[in-house]
């Protein structure tokens, strides 16, 4: 095998060398594996940084109580349950949103709503557009997906409402149609009033 010399920052080499020692690998083997992973990530059209960012999303979803499932099956069950008992389903999704937000509140994030916004933006990868904009005491949520059935759109909007309610916001405007969710929330002040 032909070999070449590669110059790398000493502090980084030392740290990687420390990890290699602890794991019982040689530095040569460890660096080879690492560089091969760079090539493998590139084969997916991504950098290593992007791969690790993507992994962090999966980890956050897992910690937030989400599971992965096939979209078609999910919509079927949602549709059927919604048809049977719409009000109870909405209540349940509202509560689930609240529970999810509570998790962010107790996990020790510096800015829990911001962490929730960041994660939701990536969890909802089946939406063509998902944005949460914060402006002083107001939060606007916009979610668009032509694939969402009516039932799922309604229930997902209840989930978001439950989440922002837990963060101390009240929904002051709601436009929901099949595949389109537009919500506006206002912060509830200490006196129980909302101010925009």
């Amino acid at each position, binding site marked *: 095998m032909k070999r070449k010399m590669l110059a790398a920052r000493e502090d980084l080499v030392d740290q990687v060398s420390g990890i290699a020692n602890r794991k019982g690998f040689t530095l040569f083997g460890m660096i080879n594996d690492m560089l091969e992973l760079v090539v493998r990530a590139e084969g*997916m059209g991504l950098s290593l940084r992007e791969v690790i960012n993507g992994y962090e999303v999966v980890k956050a*979803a897992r910690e937030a109580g989400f599971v992965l499932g096939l979209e078609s099956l999910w919509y079927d069950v949602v549709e059927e349950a919604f048809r049977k008992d719409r009000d109870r389903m909405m209540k349940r999704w509202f509560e689930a949103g609240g529970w999810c937000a509570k998790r962010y509140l107790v996990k020790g994030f510096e800015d829990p709503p911001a962490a929730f916004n960041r994660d939701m933006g990536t969890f909802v990868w089946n939406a063509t557009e998902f944005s949460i904009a914060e402006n002083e005491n107001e939060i606007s949520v916009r979610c668009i997906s032509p694939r969402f059935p009516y039932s799922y759109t309604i229930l997902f909007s209840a989930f978001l409402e439950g989440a922002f309610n837990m963060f101390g916001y009240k929904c002051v405007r709601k436009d929901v149609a099949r595949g389109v969710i537009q919500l506006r929330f206002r912060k509830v002040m200490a006196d129980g009033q909302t101010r925009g």
Partner: protein
Amino acid sequence: MARRVAKDKRLIIVPSDLVSKLIEISNREGKPFHIFVVEAFEQVLRAHEMGHALKEIVDIFEVMEAQKSAGALFMPMDVLNYLTGKVYPTDKEELQAKWYESGQWYGKYLMAKFEDPVNALERILAASRWDLNEVEVKRDGNTVKVRCVSTVLTMEGTELFIKFLEGAIHSLGYQTKKQDRLRGIILLEFDRATA
């Protein structure tokens, strides 16, 4: 294997074909090679700080990308359990048929996407079904054995998941030989289907 070269730098030995590939990638990304190498090192350390080996992260990410392209999405687990619990008693057969069909489609997808779909199924379930504590999908000659254990899977979830697995493995050319289940425990055995 590391030699000191200049202040703050070390020379490390790397296979030359790998260096050539890396130079190509850094050129495509328009990054100076030394910055590209520093970034790679930083990501290894970042993965380590997260408590994982970089390879593990890349493996999981690859599986997630496959799931994403198969039409998977994140759903709140307690809501999913509640919904299936709600619908299952009255629409059991219809739901089972849907899960089975969906599994069949998924099996075809695995065949199209992976050289070894049985192995891919195990990797995908292990990486993406984190509600399962143990997953094993093993091929032994003409037999495929599946073993899943979950402490959180409901009875409805267990039965539907069995249908999904059967659909997937049937479409890989196997037929069910044995089935054993309890809430959260699945043991399946399949034989190669005869023409």
